[in-house]
């Protein structure tokens, strides 16, 4: 209406838009179910995150106490090593809660993810994903190799170098 120069109609449409703006994003959804995220994934990811987070609080308190005593039982040191991947699982669970839990919204009630897209061709995005996937895989291998090398050498060898 604005382009056609019909200011009366434009004003009416603008008033309707402003009146309903807080629900603007629902217009992009096809059915009511689309407004609900995947509940089972969020449910379990949230619990994994909280359980591991709580575990780490207790774990570090015990570590502080052991550090003060300067006594580290062998089984505790093993548990410490086994806990390393748990940090990543905890962190990833948090991301899953945040990103799956927010679906379908990029901006709550205003912009769903299917509308928050650019005009970029899928081939460009796939190429970028492949590029970063390859790069980060190589870097992961490099990182692991450095870590294993340092662990194998042990603290004394590093100092003598």
């Amino acid at each position, binding site marked *: 209406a604005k382009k056609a120069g019909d200011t009366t109609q434009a004003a009416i449409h603008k008033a309707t838009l402003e009146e309903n703006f807080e629900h603007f994003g629902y217009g992009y959804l096809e059915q009511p179910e689309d407004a609900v995220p995947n509940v089972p994934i969020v449910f379990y990811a949230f619990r994994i995150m909280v359980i591991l987070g709580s575990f780490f609080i207790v774990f570090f308190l015990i570590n502080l106490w052991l550090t003060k005593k300067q006594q580290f039982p062998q089984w505790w040191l093993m548990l410490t090593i086994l806990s390393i991947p748990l940090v990543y699982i905890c962190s990833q669970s948090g991301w899953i809660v945040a990103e799956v839990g927010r679906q379908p919204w990029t901006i709550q009630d205003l912009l769903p993810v299917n509308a928050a897209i650019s005009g970029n061709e899928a081939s460009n995005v796939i190429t970028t994903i492949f590029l970063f996937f390859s790069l980060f895989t190589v870097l992961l291998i490099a990182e692991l190799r450095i870590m294993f090398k*340092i662990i194998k050498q042990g603290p004394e060898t590093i100092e003598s170098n």
Partner: protein
Amino acid sequence: METFNILQHYWWALISLLGAILVFLMFVQGGQSLLFGTARNESDRTLILNTFGHKWELTFTTLVTFGGAAFAAYPLFYSTSFGGAFWLWMSILLLFVLQAVSYEYRGKIGNLLGARTYEIFLFLNGTLGCLLLGVAVGMFFTGGDFTIDKMNITNASSPIISEWAHPARGMEAIFVPFNLLLGIGVFLAARTLGLLYAITYIDEPNFVKRCRGELKITGTVFVLGFVAILIFLSLLTGLQANADGTFTPVAHKFFFNFVELGWPIAVLLIGVIGVLVGLIRSFLGKEKYNFYFTGIGVILAVWPLLICAGFNDTAYFASTVSPEDSLSLANSSSSQFTLTVMTYASLAIPFVIAYIVYVWRALTRKKISTQTLQSKESETY
């Protein structure tokens, strides 16, 4: 001037200042560009990386803050430029990812790719990274091949507002002469500052002597290049943003912006004097503060350039295929509410700067030499 208008200008001034500080902090990239040629052996390369390696995070975070501030204050620019000129920005991102990991891995035992590979990555970041960032910033003056249709938001099946018209998705900007000149200018600024920093903070007479020799050439070419950029810029036609939302081409628009605003000329002149004082003092063999004279000079010389890209009712991102879709401060900013909240948050900036100054001083207390690097604690990279 109404409040919304003031906020839009305030945020453009801040983003411009961040851009100018970023060019200054790219002395780290300039230092990395010395890895091949100026550095003659592995010892020189270790010296360079341990001199500049303490500062690379500052440049990186300033780049991210520049992008973040642009995203928050001018989201339509961000979505159009970053989503549209996809391959240009992705190339820049890739080069900066390589920089981050290279500093971390290069000096570690058992690094998979070998020290030389990481040195090449850092060299590419120091040369191509500067060039491509300059090209991207050049689009503030030369525009890009995009269209914008806000009405597309009502198209439920494909609600895409910004479309990039060129299939090269931003890489075509490299072949625009002004962009390329600006890219070379950014590289020369970074390398000049890198040389000055090396001369100031490296205690290795032979290496410093080589840096002094190179500075005479690089510094002179940089100054001449900057003059060429100013002349080229003053010849460019820009788009005037009219009050009714239309745009009119104006010959020498950026030159007139300088003249009509006035104060950017004064800032530019002070900046140029700062750059020259630092360089001439260094040419005369004086040791102290040259890096800071030239560095602050670069900030003060670049800031007004970016100011004049957006102030004085100018399209700071012109559409070369559909001029009516161009972006100005008025038609592409966040809402007044968002800008107001951001402005309150920006009051914390002086504290961040104070912290950076404190860290900077702590990290530059001692000069670095091959001898100091031989004590294990001081070699990080």
